[in-house]
């Protein structure tokens, strides 16, 4: 009995020292990413990258003399899970800084929570405008991002389709329950129409749909030049396979959700020749890119995708702001982040606009024989 009690006390002691918010020599950063579920490679890439950036900073003596500790939470790419993870990080772990989440549909709810709790949030990869701006156009003061936004990405894809591919007619398929996919579809449609193109089919599907035969038969009859599917790799792989099986020859086009090492495993040959917009290419010859690629490759045995790269950039931004502010007070760090100008990150030079969005380049990549091939860079 005595031993049991002793054990209980000992474990309590351990618990209180590891989880207690009172340790003054560390800065805790919460990380919310999907490590399981339909976009798990996104979350894994971001987590790996954030850990690299944090390890580097800690090896150089930390930030303002303090060690950085990352507390990771899995959101399964689900808005409800993301909100749970966020409230746990804020209330239980008492973090003041959050990196995450990956998908816009998860980032939008947590951005509201961070705003209310006055916790600084920086999302590495959520491209929907509504992550940093409310519906009424009001800026969320505590929310930033490390990537470009969907209006820009949609415009770039539309411009590429009409100028480089000389497409006149486009079909669009999008997931009606996903803010990111819906946003991209809308912006592509708008820009493509403005550039003189014609969107002949604009159809939605649900998150759990697997049978696209009816929609694809419709598209086959219409025979558009390009088929724009701005969804994540799991869904795109499934649609691409059915597209080719039914005999549609249109060029496939998508957004940064296509960027995953698993894409070619899921889609097989069906994705060959498909183009997508992205934040960076590992084939970019710039020194920052090559140094980063080799760093990631030695540690994890594969080239970093754009999501990992943005995860790294987001962490660099946050740490740089803390360094410049010489403080861990949320408001100080936020102001320092706003003041950054032409800060060099892997994916490009970053200056934030009035809405917490960085202004930077996009690249176009193509899937060819199971590999991603760099096609061109597009300026903002």
């Amino acid at each position: 009995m005595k031993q049991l009690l002793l054990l209980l006390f000992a474990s309590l002691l351990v618990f209180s020292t590891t989880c207690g918010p009172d340790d003054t020599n560390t800065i805790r950063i919460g990380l919310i990413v999907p490590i399981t579920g339909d976009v798990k490679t996104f979350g894994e890439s971001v987590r790996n990258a954030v850990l690299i950036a944090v390890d580097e900073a800690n090896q150089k003596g930390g930030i303002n003399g303090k060690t950085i500790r990352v507390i990771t939470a899995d959101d399964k790419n689900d808005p409800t899970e993301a909100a749970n993870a966020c409230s746990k990080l804020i209330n239980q772990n008492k973090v003041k800084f959050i990196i995450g989440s990956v998908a816009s549909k998860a980032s939008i709810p947590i951005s509201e929570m961070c705003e209310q709790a006055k916790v600084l949030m920086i999302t590495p990869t959520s491209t929907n405008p509504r992550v940093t701006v409310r519906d009424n156009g009001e800026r969320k003061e505590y929310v930033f991002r490390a990537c470009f936004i969907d209006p820009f990405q949609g415009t770039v894809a539309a411009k590429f389709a009409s100028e480089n591919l000389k497409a006149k007619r486009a079909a669009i398929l999008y997931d009606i329950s996903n803010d990111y996919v819906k946003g991209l579809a809308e912006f592509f449609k708008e820009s493509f129409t403005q550039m003189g193109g014609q969107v002949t089919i604009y159809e939605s599907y649900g998150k759990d749909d697997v049978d696209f035969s009816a929609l694809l038969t419709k598209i086959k009859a219409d025979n558009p030049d390009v088929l724009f599917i701005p969804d994540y790799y799991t869904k795109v792989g499934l649609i691409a396979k059915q597209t080719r099986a039914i005999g549609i020859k249109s060029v496939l086009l998508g957004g940064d959700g296509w960027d995953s090492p698993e894409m070619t495993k899921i889609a097989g040959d069906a994705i060959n020749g498909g183009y997508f917009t992205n934040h960076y290419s590992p084939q970019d010859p710039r020194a920052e890119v090559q140094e980063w690629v080799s760093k990631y490759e030695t540690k994890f045995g594969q080239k970093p995708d754009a999501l990992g790269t943005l995860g790294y950039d987001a962490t660099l931004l946050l740490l740089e702001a803390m360094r410049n502010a010489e403080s861990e007070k949320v408001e100080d760090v936020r102001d320092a982040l706003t003041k950054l100008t032409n800060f060099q990150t892997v994916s490009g030079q970053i200056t934030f606009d009035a809405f917490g969005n960085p202004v930077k380049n996009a690249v176009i990549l193509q899937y060819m024989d199971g590999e991603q091939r760099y096609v061109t860079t597009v300026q903002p």
Partner: protein
Amino acid sequence: MAYLLQQIINGLQLGSVYALIALGYTLVYGIIRLINFAHGDVFMIGAYLGFYAILRFNLPFPVALIFAMLGCAVIGIVIEKLAYRPLRNAPRIACLITALGVSLFLENFTSLKFLFGPNYLAYPRPFAVVNYNIGSLTISNIQILVFVIAILLMILLQIFVTKTKTGMAMRAVAYDKSTAQLMGINIDYIITITFGVGSALAGAGGVLFGIAYPQIHPFMGIMPGLKAFVAAVLGGIGIIPGAMLGAGIMGMVEVLTSAYISSTMRDAIAFLVLLIVLLIKPAGLLGKSSIEKV
């Protein structure tokens, strides 16, 4: 015209898969008046068993299909023994909630890393996709396969239920449990067989689904399970031809709505059809409204 025919072929493929799941719902409901919500998850397990049989053990497709069916039959029987049998005389609501619990358990338990894992997997195609062009129509070997296997299994089931002794016992139990017992029918044995047969059909459905729409994950059974349940109700739950008819209608309505109206309206219209049918014929299309036995 060719476009319409093409869409009807798409509808038949979807309807065939729904039918295989709907049959399991209907069989079990017919015997013990239980809506087995875990049925969609047995379907998911069938898809995974086929996946491992094809990819890991390199079994040819027919063997993989039979393996998945047997595996699911065993799982169905175990679920019945562990979860439903202890509640045989409990109120129906208790069984219903248990069924929901079993469903959630199967989804989340199989999501664990050492089982199927939470991730989306690409389903292996045991053979290459071949398209046959008949005029302007395109039919793939997969569509033919799904349709033929589904029809074949349904015929086998019909023969089993109408021509064999066990099948007759099943119908007797469905008609009147206590009288069947008085006639010397072992009720527990019949219920076990029913769960086995229903789950085996769901397993076959899972494998065919995986081949037709090549992507699986532990939560894949929810939507098809729900749709198949609706199909069973639409046709008249407890009636085997009703499940097939209902599934065919569901598949067709979904595909034709996507084709001619809008894909956004698809589920709304599918469920609207259900509502209208139930308003006009509360027991389903083939259901006979019967007076509750006292």
